[in-house]
C-alpha cells in the first residue's frame, strides 16, 4: 500500500495562553481503512497578474478522496492568488501562504481555478488522489 502522510503544527499567541495543535493523518482512499491514495501530481507554475489557471489538468474521479496542497511561493507579501472551486471562491493565498484541503471534484465543472493578483505569483501544488478521468487524445 502506498502511504501518504500529512502533518500539521499550528501555534498561536492570540489567546490568553499559547495554543499549540498538532495533527497527522494518513491519506486513505474514500471509505477504506486499508488502502492509501496511490497517484499524485506535483507541479510548479509562474502566473502573471490577471492570469487565470486551471490548476488540475485532468479531473480526479468524482467522490473519491483527493488531497490538494497549494502554496504561494511569492516573496512579495502583497501578491496573492484567488482560489476557486466550481466558481465558488474559497479564499486568497498571499505570498508565503499554503493550504491543504480534501478537494471534492464532484462533477466535471468542479475544477480548482487560481487567479494571480499583484504580480507574477509562483505557485507550487501537489494533488494526491486515487484515479483520474483521462482526457482523450486530440
Amino acid at each position, binding site marked *: 500500500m502506498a502511504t501518504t502522510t*500529512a502533518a500539521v*503544527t499550528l501555534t498561536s*499567541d492570540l489567546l490568553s495562553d499559547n*495554543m499549540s495543535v498538532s495533527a497527522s493523518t494518513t491519506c486513505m482512499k474514500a471509505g477504506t481503512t486499508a488502502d492509501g491514495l496511490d497517484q*499524485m501530481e506535483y507541479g510548479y507554475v509562474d502566473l502573471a497578474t490577471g492570469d487565470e489557471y486551471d490548476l488540475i489538468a485532468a479531473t480526479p474521479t468524482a467522490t473519491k478522496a483527493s488531497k490538494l496542497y497549494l502554496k504561494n511561493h511569492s516573496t512579495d507579501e502583497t501578491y496573492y492568488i484567488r482560489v476557486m472551486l466550481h466558481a*465558488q471562491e474559497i*479564499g486568497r493565498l*498571499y505570498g508565503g501562504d*499554503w493550504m491543504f484541503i*480534501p478537494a471534492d471534484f464532484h462533477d466535471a465543472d468542479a475544477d480548482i481555478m487560481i487567479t494571480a493578483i499583484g504580480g507574477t505569483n509562483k505557485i507550487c501544488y501537489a494533488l494526491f488522489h486515487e484515479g483520474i478521468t483521462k482526457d482523450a487524445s486530440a
Partner: protein
Amino acid sequence: MATTATISISSDIAPGFGGISESMTLTQAGTLTDIDSTTGFQIRKLSATGAVDLVTMANELVEPKDSVAAKIFIRNIGYKGVIDKSVGVTIGVNAEPIGKLYGGDWLMMPLTCIDADDITVNPATDDTVVVEYVMFYEEA
C-alpha cells in the same frame, strides 16, 4: 510568537518525491503584520446527516473583514477516541462542497469571510462525530 502553521507531507507514491515541509506565519492581507483575531479553538458534535453551519460569518462577535487573509483549520476527531477512517464529514463554503474529511483528516484553507460564505459541515451518516476547528481572521 504570532500565529504559525507548519505542514509536512511524506509520500512513497512517486519514486524520488522528497516530501514537502513548509511553514507560514499568518499575517494580515498584503502586510507582514500578524493576524489579529480568532474564534478560539472549538469543537462541534454532529449526530445526524444534513449540512449545518460550523461558522456563520454574520454571527461572529468580532466581525471578520471580507476578502483578505483569513484561514481556518478543521479536523475530524471521531467520537470518544474512536476515529473512523471510513466515514467522512463534508466541509462546504456557501453550500459548495469543498471536500470530505474522513476520521483523523484535517484541512487548512483560506476564507473570504463574506457573509454568504458560511462554513458548513455535513456528516455522511447519523453516527456521532466531532470536528474541532479554529478560524483566524482580521477584524473589520
